């Protein structure tokens, strides 16, 4: 049980919480950094300044209303589809693994993978621009080929966790 704080690959603070519900059921939740007020106000002011500049050039007030609509819709779409608030992994022994992402607008998207389909859980390295990031992913069994892998499901999209504490956490899970 308990919560620990770490830094993600992009430098933002990330909190990890581990819970053990019973002998065969564990839950890990990663809380991603929240939406910063200063970045929100920066983007909004930039859009509105650009719209005001266009308005001064074209003298058409539709530009201003269009800018307001774009800002509102963009914010709603960002909060509903893009901004991940918390990701959790629920491991139920002999039933399966459940991956839940909850977004900033409250939407939750869940995927349950049965134990029979899981081949292995691995840590993958990825080279992103100039740094190497590590991420955890689940390998799914190919029904036709016992040695093959049909799909790779990456977990914890919101963070970009550093390698060393993933190995600590992996030892805690398995």
């Amino acid at each position, binding site marked *: 049980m308990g919560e620990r704080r770490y830094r993600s690959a992009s430098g933002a603070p990330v909190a990890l919480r581990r819970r053990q*519900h*019973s002998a065969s059921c564990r839950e890990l939740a990663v809380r991603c950094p929240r939406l910063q007020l200063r970045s929100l106000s920066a983007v909004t002011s930039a859009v509105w300044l650009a719209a005001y500049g266009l308005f001064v050039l074209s003298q058409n007030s539709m530009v201003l209303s269009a800018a307001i609509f774009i800002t509102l819709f963009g914010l709603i779409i960002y909060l509903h589809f893009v901004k991940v608030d918390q990701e959790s992994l629920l491991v139920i022994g002999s*039933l399966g693994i459940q991956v839940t992402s909850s977004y900033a607008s409250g939407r939750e998207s869940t*995927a349950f993978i049965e134990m029979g389909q899981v081949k292995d859980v691995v840590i993958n390295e990825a080279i992103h621009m100039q740094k190497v990031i590590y991420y955890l992913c689940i390998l799914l069994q190919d029904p036709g080929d016992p040695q093959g892998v049909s799909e790779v499901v990456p977990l914890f999209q919101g963070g970009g966790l550093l390698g060393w504490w993933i190995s600590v956490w992996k030892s805690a899970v398995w």
Partner: protein
Amino acid sequence: MVLKVFFPSCCSSAESGILIGRWISEQNSAVILAVVHFPFIPVQVKQYLSEVQRVTKVSVSVLGSWSNSKQEKEESLSEFLGDLGTIFSHEPWIQISKEGDSKFWSCSTLQKHSNNPKEEEIILVYYDQRKVMLSHLHPPLATATSTDHKADDASKLSAVFDTVAKSKILFMTDRYDDGPIKLTHWQSDGVEASIIVELMKQASVPVCMLLTFLLSLISGICRSRVLKFWPLSFLWSKLSTCEQLGHRLQHLQVISSNKKAQNQTQLMRKANIFVSLLIDVALGILLMSWLYRKNRIGHLADTLIPVADHIAEELQDLLQWLMGVPAGLKMNRALDQVLGRFFLYHIHLWISYIHLMSPFIEMILWYVGLSACLGLTVALCILSDIIALLTFHIYCFYVYGARLYCLKIYGLSSLWRLFRGKKWNVLQQRVDSCSYDLDQLRLLVVIVQGLIHLLVDLIDSLPLYSIILRLCRSYRLAAGVKFRVLEQQDGKPLRLLMQINPLSYGSVIQTYRLPTYSCYPKDSWTSLCKKLFLGELIYPWKHKGEKQD
């Protein structure tokens, strides 16, 4: 291995009794379907279960005992329930007991012939029986297309869903029946039925028979030899209205067939076609009611002739310009005059034909507009056909010009080495510029027709019933399940709530799309432009599966 017990949430407040359900030994899980209450005669219970097993082909058996005591735990009752384990022998014998209003139940198993004395862990999963019974679990789209999916690889959850869905007959008896067995399940408070649904079921049989008879008549007429002569059959195959009508006729035949749908896909297809037809006809009638008000047909007919005249005048001006000295270029006068006069005569013929028809246009439009009640798609196809007919002369010019241009290009490309320099394509320039202006007009017509056919295709293939089902009764289309961990207490089994995870809208559309014919130009816009430049003909009515000319 961990023992999983799937318990229906409707039985949480049931009286004490014994649990019946299915034991899936390879997954070490028990799916509980109902609770049988005291008093009962064990022989009758066994008889009833074998009867149910025979009808549903699901191996239903007595799995354990359930005790719900409002007051303190009674020792005698627990002994009695333990003795029941010897009457209904089942390995392992599951005992679930609930004290008072406590949320945390105690669950234990009795293993008589167990090899390992180790106490195994028990997980209690609650599920909503009605939703799981009505739901259809969709396999992931990747595995749905692979053909070598073995039966023994079937997922555990689909076994649970199957068990509940096939045991419908178990849920048909409620507490008001006077049988020897008293059950508790989701329908035990009274079997649900809707009088409207029953009436519609009774009425649908004669309606289907009538519809089948009418459709066989119509298809017999369509297939008669009178309509098969060459000019007529060519015309029918080229008009998109006839294709769309044939398509809808096929749909009606699917709906009115007497055979019950065998599986989920066929049922959904029938339902989708029915809803799609209904909405199509409703929109068509709406369009008709709008069109026939305030004499809009008259206005439409009045504007049609001047527009055709205007186009013809523009074309005539263009030809006169080309026959003269276009942009200061010196042309081959003889060929100019021949081709120009040929095209001018075409336009003259076309305009006289339209003027001849002008008193009848309004009446024709009025009667043709009535066919909009067959559906919005039919109305759109008629519009597309009218555009095609009115611009037919443009298509003729385009064909002549394109063929000549094509010939020139081939001839010139082979003689390019010989005819370099001064003696170069005077004729090609003339046909070229004529072709360019016509090409723009042709492109416009092709774009408009393409958009109309795209819209018709979209309306045809959208599975409306599935989308409405996903919106209103999302548990019926399941992509999977999700588990929620409920409050725990030490020493008690793990409690999970199983809920249904509905299919996403994209997967709904992809799984249940209705197949369509496609009548729009199936080339992409880049290949279209390439064809224009090289002079290959663009056929507006290329069907899927027809070989290229």
